[in-house]
């Protein structure tokens, strides 16, 4: 079937070795008019160098305040099939494992009731069902819940869909059950996920180790990152094998030839604290100086492994630039054991949210609120004691807010006595 819209510019994007979204959409467009109009609209944007979507109205499924992004195009005259083109965010299973069975069913539902297009996956982690009309929202939701056992993810001023790295499912370094933690948060806080109650959005992400394969530290209001407290496990035999060139360094990430590892240059000199020594036979690590950066383990995966006393470092506050500038998450709890039923963690989360809900302004992320009121207030609220691990460096300005409780007599002064000692 010939397509309605000419798309000469987009057609340029069917060329080249990388898979083409245009080619993919085109094949569906032959049977789905939404896709045809979407291509037409996009071609217009390529011509105008301007987008053609308007602000979303408030659309959604009954009883939920999030999970659907309303979207209307600003040229319904030309592209009536995408006049309404809302996305639905479907909460992905942790670590994004699927059976083909569930995927095929999802495709069937979405081919019938939506555009047949996805983002697999959205940046937060959801499966994004890209484009449908308001009247299809409830039917799709019904099918998702009934046929797939799936639910919507977050949007708006609520908890967003948590996500995690592959962790123990397929990685030897994970210090956490990343999926289980993610699932626990998601299930425990379903209400917070679906019904806006916060000053703004709130994101959790869980990485099994400091490599942080889900980029938690850069983009989660609460970043949970696996780590350990004991010593790196060393297989000296394997270290020698790397040095002898019998094993490929970095699991092949830097090339596949067998070559003797220059352990001094490639491992020891790259260790941020230089806390290792190789005497030609054995590798010594001063674990008390190790900051668990993972580098040595990354380079010699068959010789070194994280310790066994594992848990998480909890950091908070990461976000994108709006409003006060981007933030990375900051260490709040250097180490927390993360074992079901995760009570200590829940308690922390709930205290944190209470404080944020009490003090946060509209559209103020947790990180910004901490900036505004100070880390000290936050620590007080969550009942955590100051620890040098929370900071890179102590303050260097002398503008200290001393606590009146620590000062003899508090803030009281005796002006009369003062003026007896000092004439004006």
């Amino acid at each position, binding site marked *: 079937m010939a397509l309605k819209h000419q798309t000469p510019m*987009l057609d340029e*994007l069917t*060329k080249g*070795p*990388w*898979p083409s*979204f245009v080619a993919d*959409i085109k094949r*569906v467009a032959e049977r789905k008019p939404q896709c045809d109009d979407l291509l037409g609209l996009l071609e217009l944007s390529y011509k105008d*160098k*301007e*987008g*053609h*979507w*308007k*602000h979303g109205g408030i659309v959604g499924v*009954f009883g939920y305040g999030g999970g659907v992004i309303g*979207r209307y195009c600003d040229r319904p005259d030309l592209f009536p099939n995408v006049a309404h083109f809302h996305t639905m965010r479907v909460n*992905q299973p942790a*670590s*994004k494992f699927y*059976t*083909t069975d569930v995927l*095929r069913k999802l*495709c069937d539902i*979405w*081919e019938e009731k939506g555009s*047949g*297009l*996805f*983002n*697999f996956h959205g*940046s937060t982690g959801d499966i994004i069902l*890209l*484009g449908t009309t308001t009247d299809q929202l409830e039917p799709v939701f019904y099918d998702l*819940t009934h046929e797939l056992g*799936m*639910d919507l993810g977050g949007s708006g001023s609520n908890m967003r869909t948590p996500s995690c790295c*592959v962790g123990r*499912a*397929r990685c030897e370094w*994970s210090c956490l059950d990343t999926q289980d933690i993610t*699932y626990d948060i998601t299930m425990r806080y*379903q209400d917070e996920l679906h019904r806006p109650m916060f000053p703004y959005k709130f994101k959790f992400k869980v990485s099994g180790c*400091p490599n*942080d394969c889900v980029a938690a*530290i*850069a983009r989660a209001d609460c970043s949970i*990152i696996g780590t350990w407290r004991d010593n790196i496990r060393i297989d000296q035999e394997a270290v020698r094998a790397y040095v002898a060139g019998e094993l490929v360094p970095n*699991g*092949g990430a*830097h090339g596949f030839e067998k070559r003797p590892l220059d352990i001094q240059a490639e491992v020891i000199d*790259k*260790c941020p604290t230089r806390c290792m020594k190789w005497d030609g036979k054995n590798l010594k690590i001063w674990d008390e100086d190790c900051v*668990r950066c993972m*580098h040595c383990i990354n380079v010699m995966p068959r010789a070194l492994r994280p310790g066994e006393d594992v848990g998480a470092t909890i950091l908070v506050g990461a976000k*994108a630039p*709006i409003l006060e*500038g*981007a933030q990375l998450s900051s260490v709040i709890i250097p180490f927390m054991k993360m074992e079901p039923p995760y009570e200590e963690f829940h308690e922390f989360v709930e205290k944190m949210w209470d404080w944020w809900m009490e003090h946060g302004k509209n559209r103020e992320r947790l990180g910004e609120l901490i900036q505004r009121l100070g880390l000290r207030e936050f620590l007080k609220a969550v009942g955590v004691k100051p620890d040098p691990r929370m900071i890179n460096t102590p303050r260097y300005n002398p503008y200290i807010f001393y606590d009146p409780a620590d000062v003899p007599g508090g803030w009281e002064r005796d002006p009369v006595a003062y003026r007896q000692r000092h004439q004006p």
Partner: protein
Amino acid sequence: MPFDPKDIMKDRLTDIGPPKYDKFFPPIVKKNYGKWKYHEIIQPGVLVHVSETGDELYSVRVGTPRLVSVDYIREVCDIADKYCDGYVRWTTRNNIEFLVSDKSKLQPLIDDLKSRGNWFPIGGTGASVTNIVHTQGWVHCHTPAIDASGIVKAVMDELFEYFGSHKLPAQVRISLACCLNMCGAVHCSDIAILGVHRKPPFIEHERVQNVCEIPLVIAACPTAAIKPKKVEIDGKEYKSVEINNARCMFCGNCYTMCPALPIADGDGDGIALWVGGKVSNSRVPPMFSKLAVPYIPNEPPRWPTVVQAVKKILETYASDARRYERIGEWINRIGWEKFFEKTGIEFRHEHIDDYRLAMTTWRTTTQFKW
């Protein structure tokens, strides 16, 4: 029971959450959960993980355009059914991983993937350019300054050889966001492609009071450039706002709050490139990306100037950095003065920070290179 549009509460299921993760774990993953001992990348895009139990799991990673159709997903399912017992996963950067527990199926899987045209490129592991994390662009969002998928396609076409090989000094994470909201971890990427507006919004005074909450609009501006204002048009008075253009840095946040302040502009909008961010804690702590190229115009459909600028940065890095050095580590070693010299990028006033923490970026030492 099918959905009944007349009684949406019937049989309604809510707050069921996602399926429990292990429902979709392949048996080998269930069995070896938490028991993996080490891994090896045996060729670009192909990993083996070896368990303490002796089990071996092969993962074949393929690049995707992320924006995909039901047809595409069904094709993925066909492949997974054939070689992977019906299991498949996606990575955190929108690649697909086909998991094979039976080694004999590995090579046939690879051959099959290669036989399907350009749909399933194998790669993205190790010291490569893996998939570009990106956002909606002109395909769906209302605030973009640029498209997303189109630019990603053009860049990946050009960098394709680096996707399926391990010849870079370290992994290179490229990301794209179509506006300053920066959906994705764009602000901490080795190379970030960012859509930027460059003209202040114009104000549709007749509409403002109807479609916007003026106090929220005012509060939305990070630089306090917006003030309330009464405007008279044709004898009618409107509650509206005024914008101090000199204080506007084009973030678009006011437009997010108020559709009567359009900011997109075909002539003004375009792309800024950022470099040297990272997320991992490996070797050096996570870092933000820093401004490399303040502005490149939108050049649809293939954005050749952007593509070449990204390539130039990547290849300068590739030829100059030491093994394991991420782009940011490389620049920290050689110094920004050398970065600009080696890449030939002009250093301009836009590079010098003038926002809140600006003074922490100034050079307060005589240490620099000629």
